[in-house]
């Protein structure tokens, strides 16, 4: 897979430097080392991401990154065509992998319209470079009383959030507990590959059912006793669990690390995102002539995980609480510009 350029690797190295216990980690390991299962370079086109869930497609004006990761994303493509007013002729039945019709309709419309329609349907997508000028969005707010004690409670899944929790655990020596809904288990924790083991071995595990009011109350109890809480996703995912980061931070002085594609408060706060499309939005791509290529594997995830952990460790060392609103796109944009991200 295309590696990060030397300059960008150095940025990631500097991001890791100077935190206790992180010395043995290298950017090379985090960004490309723990090769994930199912990533077969021979099976993908130059336009596909390493996991083959995301593709770079040229619209009439600019390039678009679109992520069809889940069955619902493929099922949404006919409605995207309808919304854009693109008649693809008699496509019946719609192919289950909907890549070919998606490519066809992207080629016929401008990038902003295509991305707007995909986002309306809940599909993660971005115009390449649209967030390139975004500032660092690792920002402490709602600073509370002196730092709380307790475990690192990780409600996130997949890559960026669990990485942040892992790094915070290494730096502080705190116990890390995974907290997951029985109806939405973390595939990465269940994965038997090297990365899943590295992230999750040695952690505690608390399961709850997010459809039970009693269980949600227990969940809020667990979160209320945490020194650090790690969550990921959009605001409405927190609200549906009855979680209020600002309230907890002011009540207990916890550090709450929230990771999302575009931050909790930006105009794109409701847009879905994953590591490859967020990196593309940030302009963190390699250009081959006038064509972009994804770099590394879901690269905004490890960059954001490291940046979030670093900002959290800074707060913990200062014995301060706070909400860190970390966006994958903002961190990736900063990395593309060669900037170090911290809690500041």
């Amino acid at each position: 897979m295309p590696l990060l350029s030397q300059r960008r690797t150095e940025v990631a190295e500097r991001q890791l430097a100077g935190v206790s216990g992180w010395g043995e980690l290298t950017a090379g390991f985090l960004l490309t080392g723990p090769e994930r299962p199912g990533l077969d370079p021979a099976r993908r086109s130059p336009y596909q991401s390493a996991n083959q869930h995301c593709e770079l497609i040229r619209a009439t004006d600019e390039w678009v990154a679109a992520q069809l990761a889940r069955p619902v994303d493929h099922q949404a493509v006919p409605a995207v065509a309808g919304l854009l007013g693109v008649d693809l002729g008699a496509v019946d039945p719609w192919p289950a992998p909907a890549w070919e019709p998606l490519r066809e309709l992207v080629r016929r419309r401008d990038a902003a319209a295509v991305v707007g329609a995909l986002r309306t349907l809940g599909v993660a997508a971005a115009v390449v470079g649209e967030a390139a000028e975004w500032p660092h969005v690792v920002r402490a707010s709602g600073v509370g009383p002196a730092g709380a004690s307790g475990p690192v409670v990780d409600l996130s899944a997949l890559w960026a959030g669990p990485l942040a929790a892992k790094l915070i655990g290494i730096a502080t020596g705190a116990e890390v507990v995974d907290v997951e809904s029985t109806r939405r288990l973390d595939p990465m924790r269940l994965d038997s590959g090297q990365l899943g083991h590295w992230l999750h071995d040695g952690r505690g595990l608390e399961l709850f059912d997010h459809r039970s009011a009693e269980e949600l109350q227990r969940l809020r109890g667990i979160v209320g006793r945490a020194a650090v809480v790690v969550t990921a996703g959009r605001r409405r995912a927190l609200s549906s669990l009855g979680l209020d980061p600002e309230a907890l931070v002011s009540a207990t002085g916890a550090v709450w690390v929230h990771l999302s594609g575009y931050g909790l408060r930006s105009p794109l706060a409701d847009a879905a995102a994953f590591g490859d499309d967020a990196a593309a939005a940030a302009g963190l791509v390699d250009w081959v002539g006038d064509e972009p290529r994804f770099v590394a594997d879901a690269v905004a995830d490890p960059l954001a995980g490291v940046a979030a952990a670093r900002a959290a460790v800074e707060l913990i060392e200062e014995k301060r609480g706070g909400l860190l609103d970390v966006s994958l796109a903002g961190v990736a944009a900063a990395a593309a510009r060669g900037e170090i991200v911290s809690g500041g």
Partner: protein
Amino acid sequence: MAQTYTPGTRVFSTACTTEMIVVRAPEEAVVVTIGGAPVRAAAGDPEVSPADGYDGGSLLGKRYVNQADTIELLCTRAGDGAAAVDGELLVVKDAAPLPASD
């Protein structure tokens, strides 16, 4: 009034703020209501209140389906009314499972 719907069509409640987009629809004509009142093709102020039994509300980002799984509506703006097709209340489709990787 019964009509046919195609994917990508937006529907707007006449009884609340709910807006939805058609993800899938049957070939046959159906009656889509939100809050018990027929939907319209453009946004506007509510004309009536949600009817009893159709006032359970709609949540942003949720996908709603019928028992036969022939129609699917995605909520793009929340409201107090619930969607129904030919009088049958739609139910929330299970949350999309996480992909195997990010």
